[in-house]
């Protein structure tokens, strides 16, 4: 409480009225609570690879890039395929599912990716593709497993020349 001296020398006491301040605070807090987002969002940076007919550069014909494809198959199976390079490599590495087809074998995937990174150091791009019924949550899980080994990941974005059934 503060006091003010008046003209005749007597001190007058007054109280600060905080009711209007509480009114403002109530309105502000209500608005901010309604507009607040309490989710912590983050994002994976991926590219899109679209297959289709197109011209291939001459230098790529002579020395095709080495591409690793991670295929997500129904029944939670994975298949890693390394294709390309000067030696025309085409190797497949299947990974079985965990717990009787109920879980993706992400630890084995990470282990296999590290092995492939040592065996084929020239692998540049990793493409992730999946069967039609595989859900997005599982795709994110696999991308999360691939990212520590290969930062550049592409999602296969369909075929622009595919005939629509």
């Amino acid at each position, binding site marked *: 409480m503060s006091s003010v001296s008046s003209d005749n020398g007597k001190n007058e006491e007054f109280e600060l009225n905080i009711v209007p301040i509480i009114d403002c605070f*109530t309105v502000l807090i209500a608005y901010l609570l309604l507009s607040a987002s309490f989710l912590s969002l*983050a994002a*994976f940076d*991926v590219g899109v690879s679209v297959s289709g007919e197109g011209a291939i550069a001459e230098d790529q014909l002579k020395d095709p890039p080495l591409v690793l494809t991670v295929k997500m198959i129904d029944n939670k199976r994975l298949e890693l395929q390394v294709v390309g390079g000067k030696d025309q490599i085409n190797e497949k590495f299947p990974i079985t599912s965990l717990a009787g087809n109920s879980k993706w074998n992400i630890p084995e995937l990470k282990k296999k990716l590290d092995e492939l990174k040592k065996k084929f150091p020239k692998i540049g791009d990793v493409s992730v593709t999946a069967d039609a019924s595989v859900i997005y949550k599982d795709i994110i899980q696999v991308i999360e497993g691939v990212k520590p080994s290969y930062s550049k990941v592409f999602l296969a*974005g369909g075929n622009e020349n595919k005939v629509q059934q």
Partner: protein
Amino acid sequence: MNLQITSMADIFVILLVFLLKSYSTSIVNLSPSDTNKLPEASVESTIKETLKVEIVQNSVLVDQKEVLRLKDFEFNGETFVGDVSEKLLQALKEQRKPNPIPNMESNLLVMADERTPYATLEKVLASAAQAGFVDLQLVVINPE
């Protein structure tokens, strides 16, 4: 009876400071739709503000406007050329118009529900790639 509101004022000040601190003034509304359940993943990358495409149970939204109808995450009666939807392609190309030409923006925010099947996602991505959006940010909930 005098009501003691000094304590309430203290609480309100603290609440207000906290909410003001977390208040965001970004141009892009990054809150997912009510029905959109984003997948969880641990990732350190931050989100860049860019055009947003949202895939929810019954529609595909571009910048919060419905462009395509879905039925339980699957396309129902929409026409495609290959895997590309003309409607979605046009909607994405429209988003380039307000920006100065040439608009080389290739970033796209994708907020898809975790239950979205790959068949649907594939078509949306093919349309986005055709419109020139080849650098995607797949939005997830960071549990940490």
